[in-house]
């Protein structure tokens, strides 16, 4: 009993640590990619005493900026934590915590690989294999908006307030399109006769042949755009657009509390990318119509490691796409954001859903 609990806690810690590490290095990637795009060099000075002194390797790592995240982390921890006098203290403190919790909770139902054990049973690598995983993710991530509303309201200051209002309107608007865009996927895997499930593992299993992005490209596109909006990433970063709102909802935050928002944003982005990969890009299957089992590499520890690596690689590619878009596309105006959400994406998503309902009805009764 106690050992079981320890194992569970250990697994959870491992996943969280990996996610945090990913967040930190995504920040670095963001800085480096933006520098490349803008013909700059990016962080290349931060170094560590011992490792940095290793002859060839040390300077190379320093040039790549690989030590920068540690400096960033320390900066968040040790800078002066300012608590402005005009804020609602309780809610002000609560907001960053609420921001981070959903981001970390959602990752618990994200499967990141699978292996075949000694008995020939395929087991997914996942913290909590909920039968309704996708619903859990939607439900929990919909709580994230409270962090932004609370931050905007509790700061008692106009820019955060505007940012908070913008963010909540935006997140509500795009949640609809996002939810509707994934329905065809679950209709597809739940056709009569198949065992009813909303599990993400089942979605990946169903993509052993064609990936869903090939079968339903419009769904994938709508989902992708919605994730951009839900994570407040450019070109949908109205809530924190620095040219209009200083820093948006986190204007009044500093030091560690700001750090929590910062990490939460990147965690959301990574989890969103992971879900996109799971739903539409075949999860841990290396190529369409080609699974690890086909290659005979699905067994044991090797299978687990390989599938996780494939999945991580795809996720990071999507994260790169996020960064790439941010430094390429200008920000939308707010009315454009609303128009895209309500007058383009939502009708498209509904039409898309109806089309797939009709198609599947025909397919099943054919």
């Amino acid at each position, binding site marked *: 009993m106690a050992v079981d609990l320890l194992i569970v806690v250990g697994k959870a810690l491992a996943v969280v640590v990996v996610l945090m590490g990913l967040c930190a290095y995504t920040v670095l990637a963001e800085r480096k990619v933006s520098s490349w795009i803008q013909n700059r060099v990016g962080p290349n000075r931060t170094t560590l005493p011992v490792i940095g002194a290793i002859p060839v390797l040390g300077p190379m790592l320093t040039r790549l900026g690989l030590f920068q995240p540690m400096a960033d982390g320390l900066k968040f921890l040790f800078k002066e934590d300012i608590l402005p006098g005009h804020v609602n203290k309780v809610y002000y403190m609560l907001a960053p915590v609420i921001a981070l919790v959903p981001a970390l909770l959602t990752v618990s139902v994200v499967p990141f690989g699978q292996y075949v054990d000694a008995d020939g049973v395929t087991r997914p690598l996942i913290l909590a294999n909920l039968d309704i995983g996708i619903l859990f993710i939607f*439900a929990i991530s919909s709580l994230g908006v409270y962090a932004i*509303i609370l931050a905007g309201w509790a700061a008692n200051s106009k820019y955060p307030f505007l940012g908070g*209002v913008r963010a909540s309107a935006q997140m*509500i608007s795009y949640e609809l399109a996002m939810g509707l865009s994934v329905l065809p996927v679950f209709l597809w895997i739940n056709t009569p006769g198949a065992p*009813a*499930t909303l599990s993400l593992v089942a979605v990946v299993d169903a993509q052993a042949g064609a990936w869903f992005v090939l079968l339903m490209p419009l769904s994938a596109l709508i989902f992708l755009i919605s994730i951009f909006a839900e994570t407040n990433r450019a070109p949908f970063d109205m809530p924190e657009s620095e040219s209009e709102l200083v820093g948006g909802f986190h204007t009044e935050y500093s030091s560690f509390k700001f750090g929590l928002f910062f990490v939460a944003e990147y965690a959301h982005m990574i989890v969103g990318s992971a879900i996109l990969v799971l739903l539409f890009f075949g999860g841990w299957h290396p190529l369409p119509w080609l699974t690890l089992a086909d290659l005979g590499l699905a067994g044991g520890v090797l299978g687990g490691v390989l599938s996780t690596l494939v999945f991580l690689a795809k996720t990071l590619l999507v994260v790169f796409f996020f960064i790439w878009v941010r430094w390429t596309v200008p920000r939308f105006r707010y009315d454009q954001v609303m128009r895209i959400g309500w007058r383009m994406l939502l009708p498209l998503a509904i039409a898309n859903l109806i089309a797939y309902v009709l198609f599947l009805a025909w397919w099943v009764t054919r």
Partner: protein
Amino acid sequence: MNLTASGLLFFAFAVLTLGAGTAVALVREPVRAALVGALCFVGVGLLYLWLGAEFLGFIQWLVYVGAVAVLIVFVILLTRREDAGGETEGGRFAGLRVLGGLGVALALFGALAAAVLGSGSLYREVPEEPMVLEIAALGRELVAGAVPPLILVGVVLTVALVGGVTLALVERKPDA
């Protein structure tokens, strides 16, 4: 009374839900009231989860906490006034009103409690295994027996939408 861990959880969730619900009525400032209202919905979701109705629980969070309560907060924020919270309950009979309200509430609660406690045959056998609500069963029910209410709820929402949009348009009319 022997409380299991599960029973303790139930009480925790119940206290959370009821406490937040009470706070909604007692808190003066609308934004805070709406926020604790969201907390109350979270508690209801937790109770569903405790009952083994995972689907309902998460739907409760997704719809009520993630959408309905957010909208309420949103609307309150948009209509916020500078003097929010500073209003005083005027009138000579303020105390009397509070007493009257409390009296009605207590009477109602007393009636409820007496009726529920008096209904002996309600204490049916509680199954050992927690019941699990099958999503497939839920889905089948929704497209079979529950079709008329489901469609009608859709119509209700249409009415709300049409009304909301048209009322919002009326405000603009003088400018045009």
